C-alpha cells in the first residue's frame, strides 16, 4: 500500500518540506529574538528597593528604578545636573523670588488612566509638607508657604523666603507628582505619569516596566525594561559575560578590567553625588572633642583608600561636597595624612595612647572595604576600631534613627546636601549655630556669585571642624553592552533614566 509506506520521491519531498519549514520556524524565531532585543533592556542594579514610592523613602534603590521612568516632577534634572522642564512646561518667577507660576503640560494621564491636573500638584506638595509626611527630604520643601491651583493647568507656589535651589529641589525624586487616587499604594504599585508604567515586582528578583504608549512627551525607544537585583559581584560579572543582563549602572571597580578589554562591552566612568564619609557621632565622647576628630582626619590616607577600594576610580574629597560641582573648593589638604600630627593631637586631647571605638558598616562593598583599610590606618595612631557589619535595616535603625553608633561609613548620594549639617538632630550630632545660620543665608540667596562664596565657606567650616572623615567621591562605573546608547555617564541625581536608552547596531 503506497499510501502507507510511500515512495522514495514522497519521502524525499517530505524531508525537503520538513527542513524548509524548520528553517522558516527558526528564521522567524531568530528574527523575533533580534527584534525583541532591540527594544528591551535588562539592567542589573545592586540593591532591591524596599518600596517603590520615592516620596516616602530615603533609599537610592527606589529612585534608581522609578525616577523619571515611572514618576515625573514639575521639573526634571538632566544628565548634566541642570534643571529641565518636566510636567511644568514653563514657569515664571515673581520679582521678589517668592512666587513661582507653573504652566502644566496638557493631555497628561496617570498610568491608571486618571487625568493629571493642577489638583494633583497641590495634593503632592501638601503631602510632602504635611505634619505626618514620610518624605526623606522634607526639610528641603519647608520654605513652601502655599500651593494653589489657579486653573487646571496653572499652579502657583508661594515661598516663605527666596530659595535658590527651589527649581532643582522640585526636580528631585522626592518631589515627583503622585495622584490622590493612587498615592497610598505607590509603595507596592507605583502609578505615575512617566514614559514607563510599572508592570510587576517579583520580590527578591526584579521589577518590570513597560513603555507607556499614551505618554504625553516624546516616546522612548525602549518598550520594556527589567531591573534585576544582583548584589554579588561575581554573579553580576558572570551574568554580564553570559549575556543574561545588558548592563549595570555601577560595577565593582575590581572587575572593570575584565570588561574594559572586551569589545562586547563598554565601560562608562562618570561622577556621582555620593560623598563617602566616615560618619562620626559628634555628640558622643571622645568625638565631641574637635582635636580627636582632627587627629582622625590626619590618620586617614585617602590615596590608599581610593586605590584599595575603588582601584583609583574615585576622587578624594576634603569636605561634604562633590568635586564636579562649580562651587567646589579643594580642601583635601586641610588635615594631610600625617601620623605624627595625629598622635600629637590625640595627646593634646588627653588620649596619648589612642582609644577604642566601634565602626558600623552597612552591606555595601565600598563601606566594608573602606572599614578594613581605615581600621588598619587608625591602628597606626593607636585607635582600635571594632568592625561591626550590619544590614541596611539595622543601619537605618541604629545609626541613622537612634544615633547609637561611634563611627560608620556611608555614601551620601543626594546632590547639594551640605545643608544636612545645619540640623543638630541629624545623626552626625553636629551642633554649630554659626554653620546653621550660614546655610540659612545660603538657602535664601539667589545670586550665583554670592551663593558660591557661601557654599565655599560652608565647606571650609566642615573641613576645619573635621565633623566627619571625608574620604572620596564615589565614581559611577557602568558596564553596558557595546550596542546600547543613551545611558547617563554621570549621575548628578539618583536614578537610572531609561528615556534616551536605545539599541544601535
Amino acid at each position, binding site marked *: 500500500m503506497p499510501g502507507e509506506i510511500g515512495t522514495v520521491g514522497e519521502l524525499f519531498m517530505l524531508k525537503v518540506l520538513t527542513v524548509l519549514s524548520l528553517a522558516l520556524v527558526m528564521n522567524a524565531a531568530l528574527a523575533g529574538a533580534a527584534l525583541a532585543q532591540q527594544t528591551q533592556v535588562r539592567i542589573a542594579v545592586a540593591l532591591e528597593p524596599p518600596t517603590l514610592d520615592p516620596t516616602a523613602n530615603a533609599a537610592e534603590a527606589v529612585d534608581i528604578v522609578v525616577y523619571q521612568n515611572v514618576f515625573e516632577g514639575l521639573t526634571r534634572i538632566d544628565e548634566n545636573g541642570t534643571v529641565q522642564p518636566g510636567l511644568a512646561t514653563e514657569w515664571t518667577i515673581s520679582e521678589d523670588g517668592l512666587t513661582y507660576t507653573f504652566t502644566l503640560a496638557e493631555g497628561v494621564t496617570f498610568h491608571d488612566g486618571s487625568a493629571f491636573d493642577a489638583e494633583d500638584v497641590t495634593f503632592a506638595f501638601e503631602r510632602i509638607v504635611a505634619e505626618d509626611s514620610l518624605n526623606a527630604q522634607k526639610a528641603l520643601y519647608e520654605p513652601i508657604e502655599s500651593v494653589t491651583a489657579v486653573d487646571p493647568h496653572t499652579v502657583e507656589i508661594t515661598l516663605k523666603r527666596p530659595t535658590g535651589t527651589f527649581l532643582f529641589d522640585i526636580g528631585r525624586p522626592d518631589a515627583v507628582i503622585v495622584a490622590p487616587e493612587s498615592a497610598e499604594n505607590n509603595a507596592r504599585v507605583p502609578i505615575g505619569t512617566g514614559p514607563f508604567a510599572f508592570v510587576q515586582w517579583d520580590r527578591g528578583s526584579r521589577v518590570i516596566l513597560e513603555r507607556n504608549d499614551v505618554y504625553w512627551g516624546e516616546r522612548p525607544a525602549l518598550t520594556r525594561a527589567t531591573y534585576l537585583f544582583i548584589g554579588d559581584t561575581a554573579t553580576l560579572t558572570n551574568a554580564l559575560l553570559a549575556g543574561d543582563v545588558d548592563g549595570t549602572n555601577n560595577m565593582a571597580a*575590581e572587575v572593570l578590567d575584565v570588561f574594559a578589554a572586551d569589545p562586547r562591552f563598554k565601560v562608562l566612568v562618570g561622577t556621582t553625588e555620593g560623598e563617602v564619609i566616615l560618619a562620626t557621632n559628634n555628640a558622643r565622647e571622645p568625638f565631641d572633642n574637635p582635636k580627636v576628630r582632627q587627629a582622625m582626619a590626619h590618620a586617614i590616607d585617602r590615596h590608599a583608600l581610593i586605590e584599595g577600594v575603588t582601584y583609583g576610580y574615585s576622587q578624594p574629597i576634603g569636605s561634604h561636597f562633590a568635586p564636579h560641582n562649580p562651587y567646589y573648593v579643594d580642601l583635601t589638604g586641610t588635615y594631610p595624612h600625617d601620623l605624627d600630627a595625629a598622635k600629637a593631637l590625640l595627646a593634646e586631647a588627653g588620649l596619648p595612647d589612642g582609644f577604642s571605638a566601634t565602626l558600623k558598616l552597612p552591606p555595601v562593598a565600598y563601606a566594608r572595604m573602606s572599614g578594613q583599610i581605615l581600621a588598619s590606618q587608625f591602628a597606626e595612631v593607636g585607635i582600635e576600631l571594632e568592625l561591626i557589619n550590619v544590614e541596611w535595616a539595622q543601619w537605618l535603625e541604629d545609626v541613622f534613627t537612634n544615633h547609637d553608633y561611634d563611627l560608620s561609613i556611608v555614601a551620601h548620594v543626594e546632590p547639594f546636601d551640605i545643608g544636612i549639617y545645619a540640623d543638630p538632630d541629624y545623626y552626625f550630632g553636629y551642633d554649630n549655630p554659626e554653620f546653621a545660620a550660614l546655610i540659612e543665608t545660603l538657602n535664601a540667596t539667589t545670586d550665583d556669585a554670592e551663593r558660591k562664596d557661601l557654599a565655599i565657606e560652608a565647606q571650609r567650616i566642615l573641613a576645619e571642624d573635621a565633623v566627619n572623615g571625608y574620604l572620596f567621591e564615589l565614581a559611577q562605573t557602568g558596564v553596558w553592552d557595546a550596542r546600547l546608547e543613551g545611558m547617563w555617564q554621570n549621575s548628578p541625581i539618583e536614578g537610572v533614566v531609561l528615556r534616551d536608552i536605545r539599541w544601535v547596531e
Partner: protein
Amino acid sequence: MRLPRHPSLIIGLAATAVFVALALLSLVWTPYPIAQIDIARRFQGPSGAHWLGTDFFGRDMASLVMSGTLTSFTVAAAAVVIGAGLGVPLGLAAAIWRGPVEWLILRGSDFVFAFPALVVAILITALIGPGAINAVVAIGVFNIPVFARVARGGALTVVSLDFVAAARLAGLSNAAIARRHLLPNIMGLVIVQATIQLALGILAEAGLSYIGLGTQPPATSLGLMLRDAQSLFVLHPFLSLVPGLVIIVIVIALNLAGDGLRDALDPRLKPVESAA
C-alpha cells in the same frame, strides 16, 4: 606496633599535625600581621618575601592562610565538642535504658537528620546573625545526632556482654555502667567519628563563610578568603586557588587519618588482623 601497617593513618595524622601546628603558630607569630593592609603591594605573586603572594589589600597570603586555618579548625573542633559532648551521653542513655528513652532519642535524631545540615545552618545564622560563634552552634547541633547514633550502636554490642551483666548484678546503676563500662569501650568509635566530623565541620565553616554567614572580617577563615577572592577570580585566580587547595588538603588529611584510625581502633577488625 600496629601503626606502620596503616600508611594512610601516618600520612593523614602527619599532614593534620602540620596544619594544626601552623594554625597554633599563628596565635603567636605570622610572617606579617594579618590586619596590616598595604595597598601598594597587592596582587603580588609568590616570592621570597611573600611565599604565597599577597591579596587585594596587599596582605600576606601565607599569614592569612595560617590564621584562617586556625579559625576553621577552631570552629570545626568546637562543633565536634558540642556534638560529642551532647550526642555521646544521649547515645549511651538510649543503649542502656532502652524503651521510651531510646525511642525519643532516636526519633529526635531522625528529626534533625531529616533536614539538610547546611540549609538549617543557614537558617540558624540568618536568625541570630552571622559570626564564627553562630557557625559553631549551627554545625555543632548537627553533630549531636551523628554522635548519638554512633555511641548507641557501639554501646548496644557491649551492653549484652557478660561483664555488663556482672556489673548490674553487683548493683551498679545504669548511669554508672554507662560511664565505667560502656564509654571506655566505644571511645575508639567516637574518636574516629570525631575526625570525620572535624573534616565535615571545616567544609561547613568554609561554606557558611563563603555565603557570608560565617566568620566576619577583619577575622579570617579559609571560606572567607575564598569569598573575598571570588569576584577577582577572572583576573587573579591565585587568590582563590590558595585557600581552596588548603581546604582540600586539610579535608583529605583528616579523612585519611579517620580511615586509618578506624582500621587501627575498630575492635571488629582486630581478630582479622591477628589471624593474618
